[in-house]
């Protein structure tokens, strides 16, 4: 099987070997310089007593709770809009997709200008009377996370929109025509035809969006460095920090495994749920 050799070799060296290393090192204390020391379940016990771990877990949970509904619903509405048979609709699709192909670093830097104390967002919100005073979004603990949720959702909305769009284009048009003849308005058609028929796509998006939300990292790294006061420190960022700033490799690995277990459990549960409901309709 000469054709498969390169892929299998890479699979073994860069996926299976690291995976085995991860499991093994989770039970060791290791700082790269000295030899690993066996600590049994010590790393996992340490997590239980580590307030920063719980903060990170809670923050990642909050990212998930905030981003999942946004990324499941908003892109669906966008997809319905850009699926309309209008002239020039492709231009809108391209514009909505633009943040997806741009580096998160570029996006984060661009939003820094938007979030500036005398930036456009503060001008807009104070002019509309939503805010009395300009806010330093990235420096206030209460504002930093919503700000990052906004940036992350803004960046990936177009991606999920395209997935929905592929789904929408697979729905036969005569279904809508029949519903229209029966007097169903646009909203009713969305709820009673589009959404049920898009269930497989929704299932995929729930899993992908959850993975995205639980792994928020680059925006945190560039915009807040986990601050202010750990308000945006996600699990991914904490793992990076422990491994590559404090060289606490064993502990970081153990947390990585916990993150992985959470992701797998979440994907399985949500996949079962959405598929299960599909079977009953």
């Amino acid at each position, binding site marked *: 099987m000469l054709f498969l050799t*390169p892929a299998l070799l890479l699979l073994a060296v860069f996926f299976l070997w690291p995976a085995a290393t991860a499991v093994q090192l989770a039970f060791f204390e290791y700082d790269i310089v000295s030899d690993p020391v066996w600590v049994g379940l010590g790393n996992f016990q340490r997590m239980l007593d580590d307030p920063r771990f719980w903060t990170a877990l809670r923050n990642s949970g909050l990212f998930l709770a905030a981003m999942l509904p946004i990324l499941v619903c908003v892109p669906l509405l966008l997809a319905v809009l850009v699926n309309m048979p209008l002239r020039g609709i492709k231009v809108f699709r*391209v514009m909505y997709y633009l943040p997806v192909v741009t*580096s998160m670093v570029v996006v984060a830097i*661009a939003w820094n*200008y938007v979030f500036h104390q005398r930036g456009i967002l503060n001008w807009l919100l104070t*002019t509309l009377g939503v805010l009395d005073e300009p806010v330093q979004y990235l420096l206030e603990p209460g504002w930093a996370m919503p700000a990052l949720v906004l940036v992350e959702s803004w960046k990936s909305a177009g991606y999920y929109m395209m997935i929905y769009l592929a789904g929408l284009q697979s729905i036969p048009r005569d279904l809508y025509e029949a519903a229209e003849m029966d007097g169903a308005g646009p909203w009713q058609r969305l709820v009673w035809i589009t959404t049920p028929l898009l269930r497989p796509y929704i299932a995929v998006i729930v899993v992908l969006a959850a993975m995205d939300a639980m792994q928020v990292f680059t925006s945190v790294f560039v915009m807040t460095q986990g601050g202010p006061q750990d308000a945006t420190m996600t699990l991914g960022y904490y*793992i990076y920090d422990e491994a590559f700033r404090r060289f606490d490799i064993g502990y970081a690995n153990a947390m*990585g495994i916990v993150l992985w277990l959470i992701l797998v459990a979440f994907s399985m549960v949500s996949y079962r749920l959405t598929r299960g409901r599909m079977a009953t309709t």
Partner: protein
Amino acid sequence: MTLTRRIAVYGVLSLIAIAFVLPFLILLTSSLKPANQPLHEFPPALVPLPPVLDWFIEAWTTIDFPIYLWNSLMLEVLTVPAYLLVSAFAGYALARFDFRGKQFIFYLIVSTMFLPGEVMLVPRFLVVSQLGMVDTFAGLVLPGLMSAFGIFLIRQAFEQLPSELFDAAKMDGCNHWQTFRQVALPQVRPTLATLAIFGFISVWNSFIWPLVVLSSEDKYPLALGLAYLKGTFGDDQRSMAAGTVMAALPVIVFFIAMQRHFVEGMKGSVKG
């Protein structure tokens, strides 16, 4: 659709478009504003008066921008062709050959999608350091060459080819290699193009892995270089904006030129 409804829909579409484009626009105007025009003010001024290229020149000459650019281009050249080859080889074998353990290998490859990059970050770094590849382009490139997404997409393309094609190749006396190279590969060119585009963009934007693997600043690709500059160069927001625009522009232009392939690629990836 009535005219009023049509206008209303265009209005909504345009408002959303502004929300998606405005941050980029602000970045662009910030990079073009002359020194005596404030960057941030109420109400915001979106037009540079007059536009100047000073900050682009500054970003190009006084910071290491050309080096980062060169590194990103090098990475593209090293990664994308190899990525296509690995994917095409594996996809072809999984689509066209029968052998023991094929299902198992396929599921093993697909299961790597559930090993997200961030979870693998630390252990993969340890493996790369054991291989002596820390701070090298090899350590940067090799782990990304095997991608379940790429293999999956191209396997699908090979499966859709009619079997008559392969029978004919056999009758003409082609061996496996010739069949692959001269018969099958040219047929899946659109899929290869899609993969190349996705590969190009993901290499251009790669950040976390270079951040972990590289320690010398003169090896940084663009995205990492920008993040690094933001730390050291943070006060000079104008040059920063200019550097960011230069880093983003190639990929945006590339995307707009190639956008047709994107939609096809997205459709293919969901069908699976």
